């Protein structure tokens, strides 16, 4: 009578540990979607915002899309793209700009609602490009810290990864 409950308890314990370990990994996958290399930049909470970067690989035969993100480290996490804003005219176009013979481009961030991950392709979220903007940080993100990011994919569902905070 006691052997079965023990086996059950052991099985349950192993399952809990294994599932917890897989949830806490710094890479994660679901279906054909694999997330690797997640990191966040060290940021002072006083500035209100931080950024996280990672690589999403789609080994599946169907396109998927990143459609949302969240983290316990910030009130909200949004997908943003840093890009050259063509329509914005520099307000300080005089001075050295004219003498240089070129007007410097303006860069800005725009929120994006989805980031397409083509079948068999990958997308890198990196500085100066797509990134997760962590808004209203709960605390300072200091180098060496680890934060958890949960990514929501259209087809693959949720993937949670750990991101190391780095000063780079």
């Amino acid at each position, binding site marked *: 009578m006691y052997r*079965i409950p023990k*086996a*059950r308890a052991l*099985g*349950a314990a*192993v*399952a809990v540990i*294994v*599932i917890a370990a*897989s949830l806490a*990994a*710094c*890479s*994660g*996958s679901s279906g054909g979607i*694999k997330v*690797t*290399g997640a990191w966040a*930049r*060290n940021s*002072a909470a*006083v*500035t209100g*915002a931080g*950024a996280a970067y990672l*690589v999403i*690989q789609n080994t599946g035969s169907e396109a998927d899309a990143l459609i949302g993100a969240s983290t316990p480290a910030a009130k909200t996490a949004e997908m*943003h793209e*840093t*890009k050259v*804003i063509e329509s*914005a*005219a520099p*307000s*300080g*176009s*005089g001075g*050295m700009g*004219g003498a*240089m013979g*070129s*007007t*410097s*481009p303006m*860069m*800005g*961030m725009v929120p994006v609602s989805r980031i397409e991950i083509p079948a*068999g*392709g*990958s*997308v*890198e979220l990196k*500085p*100066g*490009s797509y*990134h997760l*903007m*962590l*808004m*209203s940080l709960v605390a300072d993100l200091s180098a060496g810290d680890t934060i958890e990011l949960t990514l929501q994919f259209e087809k693959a569902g949720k993937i949670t990864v750990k991101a190391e905070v780095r000063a780079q």
Partner: protein
Amino acid sequence: MPYRLPFSMLVAIALLTSLLATGCASVPAVPSVQMVPNRTPPPIGVRDTVYNPPRPAPALRLTDQDGKPFALTSLRGSPVFVYFGYTHCPDVCPTTLADLRAAISAAGIDAKVVFVTIDPARDTPAKVKQYLDFYAAGFIGLSGSDADIATAAKDWAVGYLAGPADSNGNYPMTHTTESYLVDGAGLLRNHIFFGAPTSLIVSILRTATGA
């Protein structure tokens, strides 16, 4: 007995899931599959980084992070990187400051970094101080009145524009993202495009200082 099989299966499934899901940092960041390009390269012309001949740097008379008046001329004798950004900027500004810091360290040259806010409404000198203290890199941070910042930006040909605020009152700034190198004689030597590799910044710094 009836429960043994389901739990064994659960363990097996959990183990399999774990094997699939873990891999951690050992997984190469760049997979063998085709990468989708998603970084905007600097437009042609912006890579022309040398001011030839060097010209006197425009004035920069603002308020430093300790609330004291600042003039760029006070740094004569040291090479100085000047960068216009804002503290609520999560991506481009901290990337640039980290790049400059890495290059200064790699070059082994005592260059200063002056961060000028283009968002004085939020970036008071006290806020700029908290921001720079967090990075603990010895950077100088400048703020001022809207008019003073506008004048400085115009003199340096820096453009900026506040974006629409979200429901929490947060707003992004669109801005030019070059940094500028002023040599120890107060001459403007280079402007450096966003994303310039460390090696290029090091070589620019060495050239400007004759090192």
